[in-house]
């Protein structure tokens, strides 16, 4: 009788631990979903390109926990990537690999481990192409995460998917301009966005601009 009672208590304790772990998992998932929801709402809450860029920077800094990163837009007319936001360092100017990665269909995630990379020399370990359908419109490059953030996790990849404009189409073809023509430009080359083309998001901004003859008017 006593043994059965003890066994029952142990089972209850085991169930209690299992349920507690499950609650913690659900709390974490709830936080991830809230992050995605807030990011999505904020991205689509403005028609102002400069505000969209600010929102992307906030998401990268405060949600993903990126420390050193840059946001580029493709300037089709000039055939180059133009930095519209740089955080904590100058990006790798003229980095040839960045152009190829920006035109890729999928993000590339290399190890972001210590020691932190020098953004003026090293290719970014994380490059997230921003695409509108099959068209490359820009890229996010990340060199370093905050020191208390050891690695990207699942919700970070989902946030990058959100920023990238969703999953790329299955049969995406190479887009113009060619990777060889793309090179990174410093943010100082960026011009203020024209207020006459205010889209609902950065990607819609690109769509509007390309429909009107290229992205150069936006960046």
């Amino acid at each position, binding site marked *: 009788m006593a043994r059965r009672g003890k066994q029952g208590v142990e089972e209850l304790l085991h169930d209690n631990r299992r349920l507690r772990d499950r609650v913690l998992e659900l709390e974490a998932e709830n*936080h991830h979903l809230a992050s995605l929801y807030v990011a999505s709402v904020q991205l689509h809450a403005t028609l102002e390109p400069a505000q969209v860029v600010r929102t992307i920077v906030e998401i990268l800094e405060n949600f993903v*926990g990126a420390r050193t990163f840059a946001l580029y837009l493709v300037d089709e007319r000039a055939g180059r990537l133009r930095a519209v936001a740089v955080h904590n360092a100058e990006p790798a100017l003229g980095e040839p690999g960045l152009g190829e990665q920006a035109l890729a269909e999928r993000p590339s995630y290399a190890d972001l481990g210590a020691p932190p990379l020098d953004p003026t020399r090293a290719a970014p370990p994380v490059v997230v192409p921003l695409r509108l359908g099959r068209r490359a419109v820009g890229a996010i490059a990340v060199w370093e995460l905050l020191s208390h953030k050891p690695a990207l996790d699942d919700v970070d990849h989902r946030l990058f998917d959100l920023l990238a404009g969703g999953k790329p189409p299955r049969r995406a073809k190479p887009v113009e301009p060619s990777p060889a023509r793309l090179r990174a430009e410093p943010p100082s080359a960026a011009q203020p966005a024209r207020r006459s083309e205010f889209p609902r998001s950065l990607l819609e901004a690109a769509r509007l601009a390309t429909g009107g003859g290229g992205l150069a008017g936006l960046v």
Partner: protein
Amino acid sequence: MPARLALVVEDSPTMRQLIVYALRRIPGLVVVEASDGLDALRKLAPPSRFDIILTDINMPVMDGLKLVHRVRNDPELAGLPIVVITTEGGEEDRRRALALGANAYITKPIQAPQVIATVKELLGVAS
């Protein structure tokens, strides 16, 4: 838990929304938002009766450190628990905020369970 009132002071709408979503997980907690320290002081003015403040440090108009200082030197508000939300590398800000009388700090990127646990502890709410 009886209704409690929290003030979230953060200039970034994105970050503010995420904090508000986290706090909504606490039953009975009503959340009011402010976009900077001055906005927060306006909302803290009587007859408002807040139970806790969560504030960013770096904000335009009036930053979080000045807000902590003003609250701690106001006899009506001096006892309010204050949580500062800091960025990495903000150790000096964090140290100053705690020296000025902040009760706790949270580092960005925030995690909802940590925000909830911190607020519950300061409000004396059982987890």
